[in-house]
């Protein structure tokens, strides 16, 4: 095992462990961890299994096999970033809807409270009357 192979194996194993640890601590949702795990495993396999990497490099027309590893790693990074942009878009759409619902609810609540205060005010003289008549008894 030459040095570059050793380093990339180490890096892939490290990534794998970090991702698993984050999931264990519930800091990372499985949904997002899966993509990372997949990336780490692929890089790990190619780092260890030199033959496959050489074949792949040949397929892509890359002269130096380790470069193929970087190529694949960069591909994964791009994929993950795109995935995050999509997730972010969904989140901002959802938070927009939440903000709208909240504002609508607050307006409704305010109106209800105002109406309640009004009706209580209107009832006040009646209440006083009732109290007076009951105290007479």
């Amino acid at each position, binding site marked *: 095992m030459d040095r570059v192979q050793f380093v990339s194996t180490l890096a892939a194993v490290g990534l794998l462990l970090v991702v698993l640890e984050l999931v264990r601590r519930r800091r990372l949702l499985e949904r997002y961890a899966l993509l990372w795990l997949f990336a780490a495993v692929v890089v790990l396999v190619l780092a260890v299994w030199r033959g496959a990497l050489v074949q792949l490099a040949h397929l892509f027309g890359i002269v130096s096999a380790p470069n193929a590893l970087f190529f694949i790693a960069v591909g994964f990074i791009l994929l993950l970033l795109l995935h995050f942009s999509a997730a972010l*878009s*969904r989140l*901002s*759409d*959802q*938070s*927009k*809807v939440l*903000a*709208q*619902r*909240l*504002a*609508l*609810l*607050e*307006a409704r609540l305010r*109106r209800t409270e*105002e*109406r309640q205060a009004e009706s209580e005010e209107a009832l006040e003289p009646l209440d006083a009357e009732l109290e007076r008549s009951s105290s007479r008894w």
Partner: protein
Amino acid sequence: MTNRSSSLAVIPAYNESATIARVIEAMQQERPDFDVLVVDDGSTDCTAAIARGAGATVLRLPFNVGIGGAVQAGFVYAQEHGYQRMAQVDGDGQHDPAELETLLRAMAERETDVVCGSRFLHSDLSYPAPISRRTGIHIFAFLLSLFVRQRVTDPTSGFRLYGRRGIELFARDYPHDYPEVEAVLMLHHHRLRMCEVPVRMFERDGGASSITSGKSAYYMVKVLLALFVGLARRRPVVEPGDSAPVFASHGI
């Protein structure tokens, strides 16, 4: 306060404390038949309090969601409270509420779902907007006219009147930022009728336009992208049953 009428004026406002009271008063004076709703898009000044003081209903968004989200909150409000017509008026005094009469008449006479006020149809161009922006608007107008096969002159105008079908469509789906241009395309896709009428537009009284020079390039590119992508959408608006992003109007 229940609906006093079947018409609602929505005024989106972001830090418009300098002008909002005047706009609301003008609205109440010129069109007492409209309920006034101010959508405060997470202002950091006292826009909401002033608007409430002036007698408007206020929707206060907890943070800034952008003009599209703010106006859409107005659509959802109009839809849920059963309004038959909704006018959109800017909070900076650009639009004259008296001219809603023109829009209302056009809606009744031409039986359209949406009426847009166009500054370019009006002979009195008192506020022609800077040349750079005008060029942008004309490019959008040219493209949109091609796409919707109908002459559109001022697609960025925020002075509009919507009927019930327009309200329902946009309560369900309305573009995020710089929504006006895209909205015209959406109307076309949904076979809603739209027409333009001449209106005057004034220079804003105070506050700052949401579109600064730095943002205008982004504005151009974003709207162009939205237009062409919008064209490529087979079903431009998600219908119930589609794998959709999220709906504004559905359940809490």
